[in-house]
């Protein structure tokens, strides 16, 4: 059906408003990150100012952000890899043998408020002297990634016909061999989707790192708060920090848009 002309005019103007509303704040954040604090406080200089890299210098050199970027990368990468190793075979089994109740156990992790897990975790891991280390951070982030990966991959395996594996069995492969050599190669797009989404969610996760990270393992979302003092805020530094946290993940999402969208909407249309 081709839309009518008045509708097309209305749609174009409405979408311009939507795009502006979604993009303007982000552009404003990036703009402010290039301003000195003097310029930020001077409302006359909202759009006319001399761009300065001073805030980025503060963030990357004084505030130790290179280390925090490294921490965030490592935690997100390790949590994603380990969750894929555990989650993909689990999702396969749960999809092929329709283990609804087992799947529910894993998916419960999406529903439970993180705070209710943090107190016991904090107790156990501080007794084990692990709080502030990478292991406990990665484990806590896996708790976010794993259910996500199982959820996405279950949907993906549901869509792969079992006949392909049966054909492989006839050809003499074992069940596990068929999974490894037929199903896994075919599910690469699904694994990519699940992995990317898990990375994004882990990168953005705040609450677990707030409690469980130490000064050496601080991740980016926690490090942002260094720019908020009790009395005042270093706005320029804060906006540069916020940009440094957000921009990499946005760029990743842009390049692999298709996967991000299919992951976020996974299972949504099955009703």
């Amino acid at each position, binding site marked *: *059906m081709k839309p009518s002309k008045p509708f097309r005019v209305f*749609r*174009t103007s*409405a*979408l311009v408003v*939507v795009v502006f509303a*979604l*993009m303007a*704040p*982000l552009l*404003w*954040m990036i703009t402010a990150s290039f301003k000195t604090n003097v310029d*930020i406080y001077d*409302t006359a200089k*909202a759009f006319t100012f001399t761009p300065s890299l001073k805030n980025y210098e503060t963030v990357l050199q004084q505030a130790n952000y290179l280390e925090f970027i490294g921490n965030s990368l490592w935690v997100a990468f390790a949590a994603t890899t380990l969750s894929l190793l555990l989650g993909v*075979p*689990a999702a396969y*089994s749960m999809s092929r*043998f329709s283990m609804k109740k087992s799947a529910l*156990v894993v998916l*419960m*992790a999406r*529903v*439970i*408020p993180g*705070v*209710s*897990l943090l*107190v016991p975790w904090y107790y156990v891991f501080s007794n084990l002297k692990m709080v502030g280390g990478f292991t406990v951070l990665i484990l806590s982030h*896996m708790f976010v990634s794993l259910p996500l990966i199982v959820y996405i991959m279950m949907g993906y395996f549901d869509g792969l016909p079992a006949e392909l594996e049966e054909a492989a069995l006839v*050809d*003499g492969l*074992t*069940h*596990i*061999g068929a*999974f490894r*050599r*037929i199903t896994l190669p075919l599910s690469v797009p699904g694994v990519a989707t699940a992995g990317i989404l898990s990375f*994004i969610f882990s*990168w*953005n996760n*705040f*609450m677990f790192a707030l409690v469980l990270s130490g000064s050496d393992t601080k991740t980016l*979302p926690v490090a942002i708060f260094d720019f*908020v003092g009790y009395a005042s*805020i270093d*706005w320029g530094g*804060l*906006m540069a920090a*916020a940009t440094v*946290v957000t921009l990499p993940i*946005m760029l990743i*999402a*842009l390049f692999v*848009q298709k996967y*991000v969208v299919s992951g976020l909407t996974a299972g*949504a*249309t099955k*009703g």
Partner: protein
Amino acid sequence: MSAVRTPRTDSPEAPAAPLDTTSAWSRWANHHRKWLFAAPAMAFVAVLIIFPVAWTGYLSLTDAEGSVRAESEFIGVQNYLDVLTDTDRFWPAVWRTVLFTGVVLFFEVVLGMAIALLLWRPFRGEKWVRVAILLPLVATPVAVGMMWRLIFDPNIGMANQLLGWIGIGPQPWLAGQHSALPTTMFIDIWQWTPMVVLILLAGLTSLSDEPQEAARIDGASSWQRFRHVTLPLLMPTVIVAILLRGIDALKTFDILYATKGRGGGSFHEVETLNVYAYGLSFDYNDYGVSSTVLIIFFLIIIGVMWALTYRKKGLGR
């Protein structure tokens, strides 16, 4: 499809018995693959969930506080009586949680539906609109909170400047005791409406065109077609969107903490159940009471989920 054919080239003539079936371990593994595959993930989640939830349940019956290692005494349902009669912090937090979730869900679904309908049919520049929709979604929520904190700053923020240009006086936004909660709702709506758009758009594109055409031939106006054809067909997807967003909205933490800090601000003006429970646990180390709040919170979430999935099933059949 080369991946499918690969094994066949291993045994071009007679399908010789593959080597790996001969070992006892391999035969056992193949026979028990169902649990061999599923058990590690389930064990991981179970240990990280079941033990903590059970312990939270136990702690809620004790007077645990101070150091996590301090001795605590079993005090029965005293915490529950205290919490449920606490009209100072607990009930206002419940009310804020309900209000926050209800308002953001309403706007996210209505706006999300409107935007999804705009994007439904192909048009030029579609790619750019999709980019704009994806970016807020993947942006780090804490950074988003900080970004809006600058925009909504009463003195130097862009929001008040814009209002000034159209002749409206400055608003306190996040700084005001009554305006803080609506402002955080606005931020949540900005960040998560795109999520609803994506889900509904996926639902819309999977609908078949025929019922639409039939209604058009019958002379239905576009509103009538939306109201009586598209919306009922899309309802299961709408429920999924409400369910997914609802669970996360109930648990909102990052934006509230980034904009108002501990305790939801000095007057607890944005203190929801999640923020309250976090504060009790990690600012006051009042583990017994915080566990009680969490168990009640948990029951509320399960209740809401159950109600929604129940309704979803009812609509599906």
